[in-house]
């Protein structure tokens, strides 16, 4: 059984990297606007995890303070992303990436 004391910085960073990659792949392959927004949030939160882990490892509060800033910015980003998604929905009658074909070349 895995005990709490066996969990080192490496585990946290690995988890954070895995979550970040899942988010990244999500942005790249998913076709729904809302899911893309969720994936971006996942990436930001993966980074938050890394900040907290590093902060705990170094016994510094700085990383945890940064996380609050990031959370605030992520909230602003989500608000703007959803607002854009709504305006896209009104114009295109859908939130699928495949609708976006006006601009290419």
């Amino acid at each position, binding site marked *: 059984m895995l005990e709490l004391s066996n969990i080192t910085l490496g585990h946290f960073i690995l988890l954070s990297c895995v979550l970040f990659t899942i988010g*990244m792949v999500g*942005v790249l392959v998913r076709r729904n606007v809302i899911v893309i927004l969720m994936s*971006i949030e996942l990436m930001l939160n993966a*980074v938050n995890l890394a900040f907290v882990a590093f902060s705990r490892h170094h016994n510094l509060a*700085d990383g945890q303070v940064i996380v609050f*800033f990031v959370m605030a910015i992520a909230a602003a980003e989500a608000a*703007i992303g959803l607002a854009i998604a709504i305006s896209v929905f009104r114009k295109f009658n859908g939130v699928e990436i495949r609708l976006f074909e*006006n601009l290419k*070349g």
Partner: protein
Amino acid sequence: MELGIYLQDISLTIPLMVLFVLSLLPVTVKIFSGNVEQKPLFTFLQAAFAVILTGVLIVLRNTTEVVYAFNNTIVFSPYIKLTTIILVLSTLFTLFLGYRSPSIPKNQYSEHVFLLLSALLGMLVLNYSNDLLITFIGIELLSLPLYVLVGLSGNSVVPKEASFKYFVLGSFASAFLLFGIAFIFGATQTTEITKILSASDQVDKNLLTIGIMAFLVGMFFKVALVPFHSWLPDVYQGSPTPMTAFMATTVKLVIFVFLLGFVDVIRLMDMNVALYTLQWVAILTMFLGNMVALKQSSLKRMLAYSSISHSGYLFVGLISAVLGTGEFSYQGILFYLLTYMFTIMGLFALMCVYEKKEGEDLNLDTLKGLAKDHPWLALAMSIFLLSLAGIPPTGGFFAKVFLFSSAIQVEQYWLVIWGMMSSAIAVYYYLKPVVYMYMKDKESSEIFVKNESVSTLSIVYLSVIMVLVLGVFSQPFLTRILKTLI
């Protein structure tokens, strides 16, 4: 650690606070008058007042040395003062372009102005930053209003699409940026740029390298270096023309200026491997931008690709800064950004002149025979295009000369040769509109209609004069720039 806030800290950031408070003025007036838009002229004057006041406050601040504030998170120096003034100036120009522009909805003009000033505020924060957290906040504060500004339009669907694409790729880049910051913090236990350098001796090099790489990837996305450029043509083409001008000038400027301050940290990577990658990024960016621009018929899209290749030239300057030419490449990059600012601003202002309704795109065919109807504007456009191509009497020529000679100083001969070749290719598509304007006849007998907006036309002529002045009398500007670098 000291946590006090001193009077000199406040006095350093007064321009930013003034800008923030005054940026709220137009929207506040709108809300208190029952959500009815006030006269565009009043909104315009309020915004112009805010920008000019910020500029004056920055100009009035005397600095002869580097000053830190807020526990070293913010820095101010003559060099930052100069770049800030350029940023404020180009925002002022954008305000002039946006005033009564058909591509900006009349009933949302005060929101437009508010977002524009917020974006300027973000750029100033980014420019002042000496801490990666402040850098990130600055970048977000500049990007978030831009996403909305791109999509702020009337009935057209294209800007919405551009806005969403910009948002997704922009946030993607921000996440990378933040990932990089997390790892840099993990390795050096600090996010302060000057402290990262002093802490770098006894740290985990691998962790630091991952951090710097991810951070640079984020930055490369923002300035659209190949292979992270795919969003730029769509966004530039889809957004309202004044906004394209704003993005093409200021965002590029502020990020390259930031990266110039960041070169010492970039140098912490294993340079044997990293240099190779950076060189390839520069070469690919210069070539891909120019090659794809060759076959574009929409003028806006062509300029978007050309803007990618200009990022490549600037990146050559940045590589020479990383290799340690010091002042010389700083000077080159700043001069390049200054001429590029005036050229692009003027060119997009010209496109605004011919924009009668929203979403109308100027393409090569519509330029046919322009020189007969409007000889002065055609001449102005030719001068801008020649400056972009880098042909002698204009500022663009000297800008390229300074940039490439800084690369020669650090013996990057191949990079310079690639750069020269790519700019030779570029001459073809820069001259194509000139040929269309002067040598082809109109297909229909329609007369060119220009919108008689004095504000836009004044930007066109001012930019022409500046491009020529920067070309003919480049020396005073260079000495001025050199004086700011201590």
